[in-house]
């Protein structure tokens, strides 16, 4: 397995993990806030 492939795979995994973490931390609370504002 080439080094570039390992690095790209790891970076994409980190990117996905970061997206997921961001969604868990900020994404869901934003949705709740929006609902609160509209009421």
């Amino acid at each position, binding site marked *: *397995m*080439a*080094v*570039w*492939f*390992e*690095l*790209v795979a*790891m*970076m*994409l995994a980190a*990117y*996905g993990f970061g*997206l997921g973490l961001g969604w868990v931390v900020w994404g869901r609370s934003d949705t709740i806030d929006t609902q609160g504002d509209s009421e």
Partner: protein
Amino acid sequence: MPIRPGLAIFAGAMLVAVAGYGVAGPTATDFVAPLGSMASKAIAEAGGTGVTARFAGPAGSPSRHPVLTGGENLDETSRARVARAVAAVPGVGGVVWSDGTLRAESDAPAYEPLHCQEDVDGLLRTRSVRFEEGSSAMLPASRVLLDEVAAALRPCLGSIISITGHTDASGTEPGNIELSMERARAVREALVSRGIPRDGLRARGVGSSEPVEGLAPGDPANRRIEFAVVRTEPLTPTPIDTPGAR
């Protein structure tokens, strides 16, 4: 203009991939070069004359998973030692031989032969597990024999032990199969009560279809229980865990 989230995520992933490739391209060679020199040193120390480690993938890209070539005149032990020495270099991934397989078979731990089958056969050579006629109730003498069988089977815990019930040819065959199955189950329960785990015991009944060789099907000596220790396959280590000679 609103950006679709899916598109933004995909574009981000592409950017990450391109960045990764861009970073790895120029730096991979510098990363792999010290691995190559350390591997060469490890090979020399392990006595791997003529063995070379190639740190490149099939397409020629730098890789930290070396392919070992040469060493055809080395014995298996030396080849395994060389492979382990290379694998022990920090940063090196899985080691494979160019002329080998992916399985480190030669390094698989020698399988200790189990003697349970012989021990049980020895116990049952002169005695047999006997039942009351037409019943799955064991005779008292057979309970003592089962104690000895359970003790003989104990070293084989982890293996599958097959218990086969047989009957003679008297009576109808469906009834015989049912009776032989009941007897095999009775023996299984007796072994479970003597500390043999149930999940390793398989009970089956074959009726009178497999008489003792040389005996007439109607001979009462065909009423018997047979044990077979079915060995389980040992785990084969992966070459990454224990690099082998092939």
